[in-house]
């Protein structure tokens, strides 16, 4: 593809623009209001080329609102979104061409053959027919989708359809690849393959924005991440730096017996979060033996079925920041 001269936009201010080769994705003081509700409240973040950046947050946190503003479906109330020297708010055409997008809902490919859907997606993104054929074959091979390559979309399982949608999003990647819950419904083996492909995108210079509320998976896969809660960016850093505040603490998880009330917590336990039958709290390492005795008592009394004491995870930091436990494959329904 060649650049059309008229496509070039004026360079951005020195603070936010890099050299022509700088394809950093920048969100600056982004605010989006729906009436009195601030779905995004002065969010600032940056994703460098080659970086896999996780955007975490519970349902309604404002993740999808940020994505929709990035790809030109919503207009910010204030703030800037830039990709390299392109202002994505002022130039939605550039936003759609420079960003690849895997939405959270399934792709509309019921009438498409798998190979056809991926190839057409690549050609719509400007790749030549021959190139895209080779790339499609590589992706189908890499994600072990060979047995479905000639199948029609409506015959596919949710997980396979998700993988086909992923291939459509990355067959001809943009400078920014936005993946909204890419692993939903995907089996564990192919999840691993999918993460390899995401890492490969980074290796080829794409900035990857990964939207998820599956914290455990993000912890293993992202370079940096941000936690969004009630429209605000409440934390940002590497997975390790996010866990720093929890050092010298342990995670105590109780699987409560169905039908039982949440037991009163001892004073040495931190704030707890219960989701379903899972009760999770943080304790100091010095209280480990006391905590084991307490948990064993609850188990013997039939209040809990089992318990686990382990090192703190990113999820604990996430719980601390948002008072929510992450899910795997939950419906986001994000604002």
């Amino acid at each position, binding site marked *: 593809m060649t*650049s059309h001269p008229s496509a070039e936009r004026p360079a951005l201010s020195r603070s936010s623009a890099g050299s022509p080769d700088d394809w950093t994705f920048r969100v600056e003081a982004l605010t989006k209001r729906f009436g009195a509700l601030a779905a995004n409240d002065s969010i600032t973040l940056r994703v460098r080329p080659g970086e896999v950046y996780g955007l975490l947050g519970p349902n309604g946190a404002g993740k999808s609102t940020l994505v929709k503003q990035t790809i030109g479906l919503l207009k910010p109330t204030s703030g800037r979104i830039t990709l390299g020297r392109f202002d994505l708010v002022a130039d939605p055409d550039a936003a*759609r061409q420079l960003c690849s997008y895997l939405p959270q809902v399934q792709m509309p490919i019921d009438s498409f053959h798998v190979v056809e859907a991926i190839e057409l997606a690549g050609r719509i993104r400007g790749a030549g027919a021959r*190139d895209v054929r080779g790339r499609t074959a590589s992706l189908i091979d890499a994600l072990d989708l060979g047995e479905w390559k000639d199948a029609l979309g409506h015959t596919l399982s949710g997980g396979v359809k998700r993988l086909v949608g992923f291939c459509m999003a990355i067959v001809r990647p*943009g400078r920014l690849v936005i993946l909204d819950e890419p692993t939903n419904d995907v089996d564990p083996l192919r999840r691993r393959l999918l993460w390899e492909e995401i890492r490969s995108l980074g*290796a*080829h210079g794409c900035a990857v924005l990964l939207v998820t509320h599956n914290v455990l998976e993000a912890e293993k896969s992202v370079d940096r991440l941000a936690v969004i809660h009630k429209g605000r960016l409440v934390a940002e850093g590497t997975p390790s730096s996010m866990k720093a505040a929890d050092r010298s603490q342990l995670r105590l998880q109780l699987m409560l017996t169905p039908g039982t009330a949440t037991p009163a917590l001892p004073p040495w336990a931190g704030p707890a979060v219960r989701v379903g039958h899972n009760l999770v709290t943080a304790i100091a390492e010095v209280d480990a033996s006391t905590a084991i005795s307490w948990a064993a008592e609850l188990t013997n009394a039939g209040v809990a079925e089992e318990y686990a004491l382990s090192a703190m995870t990113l999820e604990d930091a996430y719980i601390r920041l948002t008072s929510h436990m992450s899910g795997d494959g939950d419906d986001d329904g994000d604002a």
Partner: protein
Amino acid sequence: MPELQDASVIVPHGTVERGARHWWHDYAVMVQWHLASLRVWLVTLTIVQLLAGVGFVLGISLFFVRVPMTAALFVSTGVPVINLMTVGLILGPQLVADQKSNGSYEYLRSMPVSRSVTAAAWYTVCLIGGVPAMVVSLGVARLRYDLPLHVSPMIVPAVLLTSFAGTMLGYALGHAIGSPMATRLITQLLVFAIFGFAPILFPLSQMPRWLGTLNWWFPFRQMAVVTRAALTPGGHAAVLSAYVVLGLWAIACAGLAGRALGRRP
């Protein structure tokens, strides 16, 4: 590491394409996209269109012991109009309503193609879905009633504009109306209005004067005027004004749909 053969595809591109050459490339691919997305339905729809068209043409004979030439002529030249407008005006907005309901609408809006490309590709698909049924309906009418049809070169602009106006009206209904349910209801209402109260299959003179005047301002009667003028011999009054009214409707609807598609709340 990826194979060398696809390395150029993986490396993200850093240009924004605009211009005619890019437009035609996108148009060709989007026609393929629309055709593939209607793979099953387009065949079914074409068959239904053929059956409906032929059914109308032949069915009119059941109303009469001896079919008057005027009735045969109006039905035979009105059915092609129905054939031409059905895909764009009826199926189009219902598909968009479905996309809005199942969540795929936002993905389709995020595709890196211009709004004019998407609209032009969809218009092409509507022509592909309408023209074969139109031709067959006319052929059957000719055989059944031995009509004095005279297909003039004006059939080309008449067909193109009739289909375009229907497609753009449907496009506006689908994209500019926020609620999918409202789109579906209005589409149903349109079917009822077109068959019952637009002088497509019967002469304008059979309508109350006020309804005839009202129809002058709507596109459906004008579609019948331009199509009929291109299919029958002799001079036709008000053809030029019909083209103008139809063209204005098409432009207005295209503008409305384009604005709705580009809207960023």
